[in-house]
């Protein structure tokens, strides 16, 4: 570390202390004002530390990043322990332990079965040892197998069967909402709103043609020439528009995060807005 790094670090520490003192004075009438002032200052400085990466990689960014990862892991572990191990497992294993953790004991003749996940959990932790690390493969295999089995059934139903059937859309109007009464009736009752018949028909045709052309684009057993080639070309356009929509939504999401942090800095830290 060179001299300028020490100077920057000293300035940051001074600013942090100043911010903490000013916020403590501002919250002097409130209960736990000192703690809250520290929290607001800490959150603001961590936010700025993360954004400092936009200038260049630095020690403050690394500190904030490591702190974030560590705190997140610890938070998830604590929540998992108190909500699931204490909340669900202990009340089914032991009445004494349930009383200790102030949880209502759940008596059942099947409670002995809950020792199985306890044993599997301990086996999973064997990963941390050198000689018994192999034992962790058994519960891991069970987790992977169970997840794969469950997902296979659910995805097959919702992402395949229902999605395929949802692609069979009425191309001449929905029987209930927009029954097709002929071209004359369609033109004379033309409704340009988002819920009108024209929009419904256009949506259904886009779904129908988009699916067909998208599949054609990924069909490589035939050369993409002639009508097949043109359909493939439409397919790539459909894909590009889809990626564009995803990118647009992603930009909106990222801007929302920036708005959230700037709002926090301006409102909670600097008090510029109410």
């Amino acid at each position, binding site marked *: 570390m060179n001299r300028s790094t020490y100077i920057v670090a000293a300035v940051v520490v001074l600013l942090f202390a100043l911010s903490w003192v000013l916020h403590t004075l501002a919250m002097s009438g409130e209960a736990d004002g000192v703690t809250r002032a520290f929290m607001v200052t800490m959150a603001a400085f961590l936010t700025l530390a993360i954004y400092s990466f*936009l*200038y260049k990689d630095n020690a403050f960014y690394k500190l904030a990043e490591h702190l974030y990862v560590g705190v*997140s892991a610890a*938070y*998830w572990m604590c*929540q*998992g322990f108190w*909500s*699931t191990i204490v*909340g*669900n497992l202990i*009340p089914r294993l032991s009445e004494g332990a349930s009383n200790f953790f*102030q*949880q*209502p004991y*759940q008596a059942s003749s099947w409670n002995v079965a809950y020792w199985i996940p306890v044993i599997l959990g301990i086996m999973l932790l064997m990963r941390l040892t050198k000689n018994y690390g192999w034992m962790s493969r058994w519960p891991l295999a069970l987790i992977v197998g*169970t*997840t794969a089995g*469950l*997902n296979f059934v*659910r*995805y097959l*139903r*919702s*992402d395949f069967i*229902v*999605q395929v059937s*949802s692609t069979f859309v009425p191309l001449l109007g929905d029987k209930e909402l927009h029954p097709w009464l002929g071209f004359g009736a369609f033109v004379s009752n033309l409704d340009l709103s*988002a*819920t009108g018949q024209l929009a419904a028909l256009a949506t259904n045709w886009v779904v129908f043609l988009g699916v067909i052309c998208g599949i054609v684009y990924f069909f490589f057993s035939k050369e993409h020439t002639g009508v097949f080639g043109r359909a493939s070309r439409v397919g790539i356009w459909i894909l590009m528009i*889809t990626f564009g*929509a*995803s990118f647009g*939504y*992603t*930009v*909106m*999401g990222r*801007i*929302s*995060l*920036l*708005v*959230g*942090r*700037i*709002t926090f800095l*301006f409102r909670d830290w600097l008090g*510029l*807005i109410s």
Partner: protein
Amino acid sequence: MPNLGVIISLLIIFGGLAWLLFRSLTGREVKRRVIFVFIFVAVAAPILFPITFEEHATPVVRDLFDRIETLPRGSRVLISFDYDPAMAPEVQPMANAISFHCLTRGHKVVCMCLWATGQTLLSNTINDVILPEFPNIIDGVDYVNIGYKAGNEGVLNVIVSDFKKMFPTDVNGVPLDSVPIFDEINSCADFDLIVALGGGRPGPKEWVLFVGDPADVPVGVGVAAVVAPQLYPYYPRQIIGILGGIKGAAEYESELAHRHEQFADMDKPGLNMMGPQTLAHITIMAFIVIGNIAFFTGRRRKDR
């Protein structure tokens, strides 16, 4: 002087963009830090000097709104808070608006989360919206917070058939058998509507796959913008309505404010965010145009 602030901000942004265009046309490089400064100004200016836009609910948002609006009083609605602070700026406004809407309509609300981080954000909704706006509401009778359980899809796989097996107590340790809301609820199939809020895994998609489709329960979703396009294929057959990103939240808030006067006076973070969103998007689009102009003029110059 908010209007003067808006005018000055717009002058700075568009004057700067014109300067960038000039630099690009003359073949000079624009450093990436300049881009970051522009985005910061485009987002910060409308926060300091608010610019508001009127929003109208699109059919995909209105479908969820109308479902909550038309459910009979006393219907049971499950709201799942499956997100973290990183998604909160987008999803929390949805959570607040939907919770408010359900309780205004007299529905019984059960709140839970599949993300550990959702627990705190769920508490925020209860403390910031539910308790201040509905002072006479009774915990356990009108709403209940059953908290977080680890297990991701495993949790859903259990509660789809037996709710109390996975959630024996509420978040305060009160057995669900003695919570009045759960008198007639044994599984997810007993809910009239499930609203899944989130954007990661497990999240809205898992609610459709593991609960909505198998139990035939209507599922509405409010999601972070990043995942919204992935959920549109499920609409309207498997998902009754989608709030996609902050735009979806703003549309929902707008519809709620029009239909329920009580909400009109409340804070509407979704609508407030649309000003910075719009200005930032205009700036980004301007960057794309300037970048393309610079690219083509540069190529032409090289050809000569």
